C-alpha cells in the first residue's frame, strides 16, 4: 500500500512523520487511525494522515455545540405539548380526544411546529458520529453506510408523527372520529416508529465492537450501552397490541422507558462524541 512503511501492531498508534513539501490534502481533520485488523498482513491505507498545515475551522464543533441548543428546544417542545405529561391514553373515547384538541389547540400547534422544525436537527449529530466512524479500524465503509441509511429515516418517521398531530389540531371541530384517527396515527407513528433508531443503535454497537484497538474511537462500554438502548426501545414496537398496561403507548415501557432511553442515548453519545472530537484536535495539535 502506498505511503505506508511500517505496519503497526495491535493497539499501536502508527505515527507517520510528515515529509517536507508533502502535499497537504483538504481532507477533514481526523486523528491518525490505527489500521491494524486482526490477523492481517497488510493494513488499509490510513485515511487521516493528510493533516492541514494549521488549525482549521472544520465546523464539527459548531455542529456539536448546536446540539445543546437544539436539545433545549426539544425539551421545551416536549413540555409544551399537553399530551405528554402525562401521556394521553389510548383508551380515551373519540369525543374526549376531540375535546382535548379543542381545549389545547394552541399548545399542540406550537409544540409540534417546534418539533417539526427541529427534529431533523438530529441528522447533523448522526453525521458527526459517522465522521468519527471513519477513524475506526474498519476495512470497509459499510457500517457508515448502514448508519447513513437509517439516519434520515429516523427523524423523518418522527416528522411524520408531528404532521399527524398538527392535522389533528388543524380543524379540532371536525367529526371526533376523524380527530381520533389523526391522534392514533400520530401516536402510533411516534411510539412504534423506532425501527430506524433500533437499527442505528445496533449498527453503532457492531461498529464499536469491531473497532478492536487499545484506544478505540469509542470505548467498548459505549457499544454495550448502545445495545442496551436498542433493547430498551424494543417494547415500544408492540404499542399497537394493547390499549392498557406497560406496552400501551402511554405505558411504562412504551412511553417512559423508550423516551428516557432516547434522551439518555443523546446525552451519553454527546459526551463521548465531545471527548472524541477533543481528542482528535489534540492529536492534530501534536502532529502540527
Amino acid at each position, binding site marked *: 500500500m502506498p505511503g505506508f512503511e511500517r505496519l503497526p501492531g495491535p493497539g499501536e498508534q502508527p505515527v507517520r512523520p510528515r515529509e517536507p513539501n508533502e502535499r497537504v490534502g483538504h481532507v477533514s481533520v481526523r486523528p491518525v487511525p490505527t489500521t491494524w485488523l486482526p490477523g492481517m498482513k497488510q493494513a488499509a491505507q490510513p485515511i487521516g494522515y493528510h493533516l492541514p498545515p494549521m488549525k482549521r475551522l472544520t465546523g464539527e464543533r459548531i455542529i456539536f455545540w448546536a446540539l445543546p441548543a437544539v436539545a433545549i428546544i426539544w425539551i421545551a417542545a416536549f413540555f409544551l405539548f399537553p399530551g405528554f405529561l402525562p401521556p394521553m391514553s389510548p383508551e380515551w373515547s373519540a369525543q374526549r380526544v376531540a375535546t382535548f384538541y379543542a381545549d389545547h389547540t394552541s399548545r399542540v400547534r406550537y409544540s409540534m411546529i417546534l418539533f417539526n422544525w427541529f427534529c431533523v436537527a438530529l441528522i447533523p449529530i448522526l453525521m458527526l458520529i459517522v465522521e468519527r466512524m471513519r477513524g475506526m479500524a474498519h476495512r470497509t465503509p459499510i*457500517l457508515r453506510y448502514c448508519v447513513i441509511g437509517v439516519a434520515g429515516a429516523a427523524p423523518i418517521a418522527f416528522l*411524520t408523527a408531528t404532521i399527524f398531530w398538527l392535522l389533528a389540531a388543524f380543524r379540532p371541530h371536525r367529526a371526533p372520529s376523524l380527530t381520533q384517527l389523526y391522534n*392514533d396515527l400520530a401516536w402510533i407513528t411516534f411510539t412504534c416508529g423506532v425501527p430506524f433508531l433500533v437499527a442505528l443503535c445496533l449498527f453503532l454497537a457492531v461498529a464499536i465492537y469491531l473497532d478492536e484497538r487499545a484506544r478505540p474511537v469509542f470505548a467498548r462500554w459505549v457499544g454495550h450501552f448502545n445495545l442496551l438502548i436498542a433493547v430498551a426501545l424494543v417494547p415500544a414496537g408492540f404499542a399497537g397490541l394493547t390499549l392498557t398496561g406497560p406496552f400501551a403507548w402511554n405505558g411504562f415501557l412504551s412511553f417512559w422507558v423508550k423516551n428516557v432511553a432516547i434522551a439518555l442515548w443523546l446525552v451519553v453519545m454527546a459526551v463521548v462524541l465531545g471527548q472524541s472530537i477533543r481528542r482528535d484536535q489534540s492529536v492534530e495539535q501534536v502532529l502540527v
Partner: protein
Amino acid sequence: MRRPALLDDPKRELWLAWYATIGFYSLYTVVFFIITRTQPPGKPWYTPTQVVGWFASNHEGLLIGFSLIFILGGLSATSIALITYSMRRMSVSRAFAYSYLIIYAVSAVPGFLFICVAMTVGAFRPGRDPEILRWLYDLGFLSFSGTMGVFLIGSLIWMAAILLDKNRVFPAWFGYLNLCNALTEVVVAPSWIFHAGVFAWNGVIAWWINVVVFGLYTGAFIFLLRNMILREDFGTGPLPDLLPEEGRRRVLAEFMSP
C-alpha cells in the same frame, strides 16, 4: 470463550451486512406473507363492511407482524449499504453509490413504514367507522405498492453503474435485470387507477407478475453480493474471478499469514 472465526475474517463487516440482509428479507417475507397476510394484498374492491371483516380476521397477525417490522425493519439498511458498497467498488463515480444510498434510505418511510402504521392503527381500534377503516386499508396497500419512483430511479442508477463498470463487480446480465425490475415499477402504476382486474393492486399483472420478477431480482442480487464479497480483494482494480472453495481458502490463508 473461543473467539468466533468470523471475527478474524478481513471481510467480517461485509459478511455481517450480508447475513443481516438475508435475515431482513426472511423476516420481511414471513411478516408480509405469513403473519400479517398483507401479501398477496387484500381486495381493492372491498366495501367498508368487508374491510371491517378483513381487519377482524387478520387482527392478531397484523398487530404482531408489524410489531416485528417496527423493531427490526431498520435492518433494511444493510442491503442498501452492501449495494452502495458494490457501486463504490466499481470504476464509476461515487455519485452513483451515494444516490442509491440516499434514494433507498428515504424510501423506507413511505415504502414500508406507512403500511405498518396504517394497518396497526386500523387493527388497533376495531370499532372505528368502516369508511375510516377503508381509508386506512387503502393508505396501507397503496403506499406499499405505489411508492414507485424511488425504486424505478434506484434500479436505473444501479443498472447504469453496472453497465459502465470496468471492475466486473456485477455481470452485465444483472445490469439488464435491473431494467426489468425498473419496468415493474412502471407496470404497478395502474394500481392507483383500478379497483379491480388485472391492473388493480392485487391484480395478476400489477401484483403477481411483478412480485415474481422482484423475487427473482432480489434472489439474484443477494447471490451476486455474496459472490462479490468472496471475490473482494480490497483493491481498486477489476475484481478477480470467483475461485472454487479450496482456492478461496488458500488465498485467504496466504493473505492472513504473518
